[in-house]
């Protein structure tokens, strides 16, 4: 009968095993797996581009803090006797194909002007040290972006959360307000804000936040609308949990992935927007520097002194690319469904 007929089995093998014992073993769940955040972080660490971007961002943050104190110059110290010096780094000065030899138009400008010291990124029209200004500007740009993103986060999450959760009438009113805000061109609002507030760090942050939170609010509202009909939210309601409890325990933790991803993309947006504002002349007042103002200053003499634009441009580009790649990596890790 049996296909295994020729093999003789020990009788003992045919003893009944303790059935309940086997079942009990089976009832313990599969080997413990990582919780959501640990798993997401593991996925993120495996993503080469995201990690490279993170390294890049960390490097720029460190440099923006250390760069300005690496020499004795400050960002606003002027000296017209050494204006428009090309970059010169002593160690690299002999490698002439690199732009760090202090030569411009075939002449060593440092010898010409009799400057002993070396300016690593050169100097601008007022003789300010470009190295210090670029890194100081990076610091200001990053601060503006981070502060704006944090404020966006708080306003957006609160507004979107309330609007989505309480729904119907509240939602209706709150969404109309957003529509009005979005309806007016960004630039008009910002110009008005800057006129009222006087140009400066605070007014730029305000200008960015004024319309920036809308994106976050919409994302959060969408999430909340989706989640509030989930059965586990209904379960919490039938258990008698209060609205704030449901919002903070059930809805927010499950929207966190979306919120973090959105914030990740807000930062580069804010950096770019600040640069754009500075570039059209609505930015920080002189002598303060941000990546935008530094590029703007250099742009006026782009053809003669390209080095004034090149370095800050490289930094801003790398920053934007890195933040976007990191954001993509985070999205893949936190929300695997969005992939492909």
């Amino acid at each position: 009968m049996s296909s295994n007929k020729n093999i003789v089995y020990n009788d003992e093998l045919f003893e009944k095993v303790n059935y309940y014992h086997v079942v009990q073993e089976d009832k313990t769940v599969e080997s413990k797996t990582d919780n959501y955040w640990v798993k997401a972080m593991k996925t993120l660490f495996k993503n080469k581009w995201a990690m490279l971007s993170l390294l890049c961002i960390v490097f720029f943050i460190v440099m923006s803090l250390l760069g300005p104190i690496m020499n004795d110059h400050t960002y606003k110290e002027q000296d017209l006797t050494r204006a428009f010096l090309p970059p010169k780094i002593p160690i690299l000065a002999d490698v002439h194909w690199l732009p760090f030899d202090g030569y411009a138009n075939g002449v060593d400008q440092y010898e010409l002007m009799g400057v002993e010291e070396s300016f690593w990124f050169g100097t601008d029209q007022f003789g300010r040290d470009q190295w210090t200004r670029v890194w100081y500007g990076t610091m200001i740009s990053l601060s503006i972006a981070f502060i704006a993103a944090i404020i966006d986060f708080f306003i957006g999450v609160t507004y979107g959360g309330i609007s989505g959760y309480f729904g119907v009438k509240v939602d209706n009113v709150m969404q109309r307000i957003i529509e009005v805000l979005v309806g007016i061109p960004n630039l008009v609002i910002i110009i008005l804000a800057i006129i009222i507030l006087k140009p400066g760090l605070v007014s730029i942050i305000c200008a960015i936040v004024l319309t920036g939170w809308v994106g976050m609010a919409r994302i959060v509202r969408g999430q909340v609308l989706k989640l509030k009909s989930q059965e586990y939210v209904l379960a919490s309601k039938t258990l008698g949990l209060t609205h704030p409890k449901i919002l903070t325990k059930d809805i927010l933790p499950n929207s966190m992935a979306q919120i973090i991803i959105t914030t990740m993309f807000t930062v580069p947006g804010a950096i770019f927007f600040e640069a754009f504002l500075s570039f059209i002349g609505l930015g920080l007042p002189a002598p303060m520097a941000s990546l935008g103002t530094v590029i703007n200053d250099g742009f006026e003499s782009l053809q003669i002194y390209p080095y004034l634009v090149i370095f800050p441009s490289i930094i801003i580009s790398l920053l934007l690319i890195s933040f976007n790649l990191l954001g993509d990596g985070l999205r893949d890790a936190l929300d695997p469904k969005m992939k492909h």
Partner: protein
Amino acid sequence: MSNIKEKVLEVKNLKKHFPVGRKTVLKAVDGINFHIFRGEIFGIVGESGCGKSTAGRTIIQLYEPTAGEIIFNGKKIQDQLKKKDLLKFRQEMQMIFQDPYASLNPRMNVREIITAGLTVHNIVPKNEHENYISELLEKVGLNTSHANRYPHEFSGGQRQRIGIARALSVNPKFIIADEPISALDVSIQAQVVNLMKELQVSRDLTFLFIAHDLSMVKHISDRIGVMYLGNMVEIATSEELYSNPLHPYTQALLSAIPLPNPKQERHRERIILKGDVPSPISPPSGCPFRTRCSKAMGICAEVKPEWKEIYNNHWVACHLYN
């Protein structure tokens, strides 16, 4: 069951309409009447879109009723809007949900899921939580070590057990089970149904069991209500409903169930309903079932049949029995 049956829940002319767009309304539940006795399992069956889940959710106050009365433990629920009364109601009536994958918060572990209700209603002092949860988990067939696990680590049947433990955590008297087994595999369904039956006895619970699977409802329930397009068409004890179905829809529903018995099936005469369930946005005039009913008469299109008790405890809404 004792001779004097106490009505624990009474639903009178309950309606729940949802606005769809500007002018149209979806009549999910359109005036249903029934009562549930203490200690029984009352089943509601019907096809998708018949309003059975909406009825359950309206009773437990997840939706506000459009009209009608819900009387629980002798008190009208709509009057209990005071915070303290509502909290008491939330403790006494609990719900078990359909989708074991959507009914547990994926970011909370089992302990947090169960503790949520304990703290709201102060069921046990905080230092006894650990013991209480262990006991509860063992009662539903899980064990203490599961308390630190997250929902995605469990199978569908185990998740449904966690959902049951959550509902039981606040010591309810009445549980609405909204399609609790339809997402589970056949061999697991029986486990969950047996567990609910055990709990009904050991914890003295009353169940409202909502499902589309008439054979399972018939197995578990003492009495059954059949819904069609937002209306209750028939209520009887489960034996009576099976052996003597009065409403043509109940007859068709019973006949449509494929039985796991090939020889019987070869000789079985089937009533196969033609067409589909009409939209609850524009239901037919008169009797909702008349468009698919083989026995429809002239009056069925004009007058909505009355909800009547034909025999003792056997209610039906059909002109055939007028």
